[in-house]
């Protein structure tokens, strides 16, 4: 149960991280008509963060020991 609560708390931390990264003002930093690897910067940023969040969640969930 303790490990399960720990996993839950890690996921809440990911939630908070996502809330910050997907919202103003961080998102405004990438709101520019620039491109990265041929992809518009803003889209690149959002999809990169998205992949990061899912990866972190999968990492914490599939590696938990309970």
């Amino acid at each position, binding site marked *: 149960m303790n490990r399960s609560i720990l*996993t*839950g708390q890690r*996921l*809440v*931390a*990911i*939630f908070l991280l*996502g*809330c910050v990264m*997907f*919202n*103003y003002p961080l*998102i*405004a930093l990438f*709101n*520019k*008509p620039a*491109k990265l690897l*041929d*992809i*518009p910067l*803003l*889209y690149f940023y*959002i*999809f990169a963060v*998205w*992949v990061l*969040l*899912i990866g972190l*969640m*999968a990492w914490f*969930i*599939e590696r*938990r020991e309970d």
Partner: protein
Amino acid sequence: MLQGWVIASVSFAYLGVLFAIAYFGDKRADAGRSLIDNPTIYALSLAVYCTTWTFYGSVGRAASTGIGFLPIYLGPTLMAGLWWFVMLKIIRISKANRITSIADFVSSRYGKSQLLGGLVTVIAVIGIVPYISLQLKAVSNSFTILLHYPEIVMPAKAAAQPLLQDSALYIAMILAAFTILFGTRHLDATERHEGMVAAIAFESVVKLLAFLAVGIFVTYGIFSGFGDIFSRVEAVPKLKSLMTVADTGASYGSWWSLTFLSMLPRQFQIAVVENVNERHLARAIWMFPLYLLIINIFVLPIAVGGLMHFPDGSVDADTFVLTLPMAERQEALALFVFIGGLSAATGMVIVETIALSTMVCNDLAMPVLLRWKWLRLHEKQDLSGLLLSIRRWAIALILLLGYIYFRAAGEAYALVGIGLISFAAVAQFAPAIIGGIYWKGGTRQGAISGLLAGFAVWTYTLLLPSFAKSGWLSINFIEEGLFGVALLKPQQLFGLAGLDEISHSLFWSMLANIGCYIVISLRVRPTVVETGQGTMFVDVFKRTAGAEGTRFWRGSAQVQELLPLIGRFLGPDRARAAFLAYARRRGLASIDALEANPDLVHFAENLLAGAIGGASARVIVASVVKEEPLGIDEVMNILDEASQVRAYSRQLEQKSQELEEATSGLRAANERLKELDRMKDDFMSTVTHELRTPLTSIRAFSEILLEDPKTDLIERKKFLAIIVREAERLTRLINQVLDLAKIESGNAEWHTSEIDLHEVIEESVAATSSLFSDKHIGLNMVLSGNVPKVKADRDRLIQVMLNLLSNAVKFCEAERGQVTVTLSAGDGVVRVDVQDNGTGIGEADQQTIFEKFRQVGDTMTAKPQGTGLGLPISRQIIEHFGGSLRVMSELGKGANFYFTLPLNGNGAEHREGRTEQ
């Protein structure tokens, strides 16, 4: 050329496959080998979230707002992080209470209120019917477009088509038939549909593959990769603006509110009711967002590609997914896309109509039917057929409503607009649900007023304006406000401008909803049942799993009353089977053996709740059960106890283990104490006996001397000598008792020093030499020259030696006696032996001689040869210095008393350390 019959037969073939999967899934479920007992399938079934609104609408939204299509998918991704706590809690509560719909959940939480259940149902129907009509519209439009292949023709207004030629009508009818077949084959107490879930998971795969196929075709077939598409965008200023968000507060506000809106719990049916195992939730937490991510990768390329391909705006962006392959003459791909869209639509429609029909049946129809006495419902024997037909009619009715809405308002808004209005309606449940599972203080009246207020604001700010825009209401209502009051403009309520309509409505409705919920909850005292249910929901994790012991009324009914009652709703056979299983669980052979008690009533109510909802089950069971309501204090006591049970049980386990250990320790200690007590009694009686013997002789001789003054001098001297000797013996005895007591209690004084055992032995021998010479007993000394010094108390060791030597003399025959004292060293110890050739000691006595007052021979009859304390004292002394005192002997062959002392003297120091404490 795609003929209508080709499209239709492919569609029917696809639906046939779905039905086969569902049928197979149900068969497997009945056989106990669940097809959907798998976390991946659970995650896929959750992807029913991606309806045609995603499949077709995302591209449309991306084409008009650019990045604006994303928050609807980012929200659930973020929310997934909270599922571990929130969703798990909802699932746990629902399983414990056999909750079968969101209306059931809310009404159960707030005291099994029928009013609340009905209210939630009404809001859900009003909020979701437009969403269903959206699915009909999407399928019908895509069908019409595909029918004109290879021409690209936008469908005319649906209303313009004659009713019987309207494909949406047929689609609605087919879907209704399909849903009835899927969802209401039989009445299930848990309201789960395994086959349907399997089919939904399959549909999720199909629609994802279809969308990816179009995405890859557009990105790599029409264009040459992401880079190519985005570099072409540069050239078109209108498209370039889609790549960023307008840098204003309002656009970020709307971004945020959409993210928030899409976070709210949805898909109650799939996520909670159809959940097989709550452990599946873990994988869904990351897999469901992953699905959303994958299905969104190609949205922007398709949108931009479509805008570049059809630059004149003649083609609706909502149809790009279909029209792009058509424009490129990809017949098979277009057909596949149509099937993907069909998947997205059917999945959503089936799930939502089943959920809604359950709610309509349990929370609207049942309460009404139960009240209408003239229906004579109480006289009917089997109501399960009635329940099923209510649900079937409800499904048909909901789809009919969806179709009517589609005919009436389908063209007023683009697809995405309808979707968001629907989202905002369902969002009204969030405060009552989230508040209900985390705040015990939320009350029924609070929830009702919150829901009503939120729903009213939603109607005023979103629904009515959408009607107005469809031309059913005067547009003045939007532009000038109600009764011409500018402050009441529905989309700029109280002058709040600058937000988009969804954010605006969401803000005001949530403010009203949450505000009323909290304020009213705080003002009204909850009833007993509300408090009880509230505590049970909030503290669900503190209760043991499957604990059915908590209830807030006590009452009992005979099984003969309950079984027919339940049988009327579930069907007699199913009810009988359920009761039998319940009896077996309790170790009873048959149903008739079940006792009439509150547990049985609770079981029956729970069983019924699965079929007709918690609130109705409460009313029905109450009709046969004589109940006495519990007071609030009693309920709280029950709850407190129950919630503490789990925490305590773990502690108790630990404690009981500790207790067991302590008990066995205590038992041993008790035995030892009893033994000691007996020994003390023995000791006391022996001491008194030993003291009385010399006292008696002293007194006897003293009395002779006192009473007979004529005793001659010789006699007198003789008597006095005896008195003196006996008095000395008495003194010695008392000294030894005191000595022993001191040593045993640890109060003795020890003067430890380095001593040479040669000296000790010689001094002792010298002190006892008179004893030896009196009895003419020989003494040999074999003293090894090389014995190291030991740490001990010199006087005490001499005391031991004196005791051993005098004992040896005592038990040796005069003249023939021979005593040998040996001193040797080795193996870390020094050893001193005192060997005699006297009477010896039998094996039985060899241990007892070291106990107090035990002497060889019967002390009661034979004249005692000593005090019986010498050896115990000696042993105590030797053990104090870490050594041991033992005897080797055989009867008639003399005895060898020997003691050893450790050379390093650690024992002495250790024991002294302890004595000083």
